[in-house]
């Protein structure tokens, strides 16, 4: 059994937004349009956020890709009234759209704001639906959705590995954001495998997790030079 995790090297990240776009395309996210965007209803499972810090009279801006950190102790799962969000065997905080009643309690409880809600029926202008990734379901109005760590890719990779008569190896599974990152800042893999790239990075002294103090035990590590 694997325990999926991710390491994002902020010293590499240029904030180019490729991960955002790749996630959007891979996971069949839809655009909400200008009027909805003005109402703050933009959909991103992964977003690149600027972070401004003013230290020693010098202003620095860093860009951090933020996605669901797939907590080992997820606050969202704790509050879900219907088992629509739960922690899977492999440590992925999943959202089961077919069961979700849309109460948005998980959104209110998530300190990472990792979940988004379908305020309306998702729109596919023109023929855009033709490009939908057939591995990922299309959501509908009234349910909460979130990053799945590209779980569909895990399933496929595991099948491929099994057909080749072996287990999963480090690097067999990659997420869409990882694939598209030109800076190779994102590494996805099995945290339970001490030799995997991601667990090596997670042990790096540069590694930290967002809001570690909240005890949510995230599985997304951000690496940055400590100053």
């Amino acid at each position, binding site marked *: 059994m694997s325990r999926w995790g991710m390491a994002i090297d902020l010293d590499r990240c240029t904030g180019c937004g490729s991960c955002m776009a790749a996630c959007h395309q891979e996971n069949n996210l839809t655009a909400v349009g200008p009027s909805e965007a003005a109402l703050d209803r933009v959909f991103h499972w992964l977003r690149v956020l600027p972070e401004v810090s003013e230290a020693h009279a010098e202003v620095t801006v860093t860009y951090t890709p933020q996605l669901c950190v797939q907590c080992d102790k997820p606050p969202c799962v704790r509050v879900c009234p219907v088992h629509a969000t739960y922690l899977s*065997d*492999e440590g992925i905080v*999943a959202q089961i759209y*077919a069961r979700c009643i849309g109460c948005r309690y998980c959104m209110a409880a998530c300190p990472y704001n990792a979940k988004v809600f379908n305020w309306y029926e998702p729109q596919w202008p023109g023929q855009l639906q033709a490009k939908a990734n057939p591995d990922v379901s299309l959501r509908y109005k009234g349910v909460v959705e979130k990053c*799945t760590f590209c*779980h*569909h890719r895990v*399933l496929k990779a595991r*099948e491929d590995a099994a*057909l080749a008569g072996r287990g999963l190896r480090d690097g067999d599974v990659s997420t869409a954001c990882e694939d598209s990152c030109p800076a190779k800042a994102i590494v996805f893999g099995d945290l339970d495998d001490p030799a995997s790239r991601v667990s090596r990075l997670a042990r790096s002294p540069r590694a930290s997790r967002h809001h570690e103090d909240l005890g949510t035990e995230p599985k997304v590590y951000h690496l940055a030079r400590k100053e």
Partner: protein
Amino acid sequence: MTNRDASPPAPPATRRAGVALRSSGAAAKGVLVAAALVALALVLGGAVLWAARRPLEQPIAFNHALHVGQLEMDCTDCHLYAVNGVRATIPNIEVCADCHDEAASESAEETRLVEYVASGERVPWRKIYRVPEHVYFSHRRHTQLGGIECETCHGAVGEQVEPVGRPLVRLSMEHCMRCHQDSGVSNDCLLCHR
């Protein structure tokens, strides 16, 4: 609107029985109307459900029993990707043409098939077995890796003389989960839900 009786009210004790009788009649009427409405709803709902379960009609009356039984073909001879692919695929003219580039029998159905093949038009087969949109189902995982026979989920399609118009086995989540449980496979939601 209630009209108060013009006469001063009689002592309650004397009126009690009569009032009770009349009012119970009124109550009964209400119950009757409600029951009628419920019955109507049930009938309508039933009709809708029945209509939804009507078998699908296939463009050609394909005889599975003939192919599988008499001709001793395997499912995968036509459903090419049932073992190696994620989707089993319903064979179409490219596959059919291997044998039916010209009619081998007098059958009217075969003639129609040959027409399709000749014209290059695809046969508009109706898909019978489908999992909901939010489910990831991989054939190769179940057939090749899991060693499950086609009949387990599809029923004895190979014995059907008539075209299959409705699923022989009802594929429900419970069906999947029971099998997973029996064979010791995880029932983790993410294994199927996508």
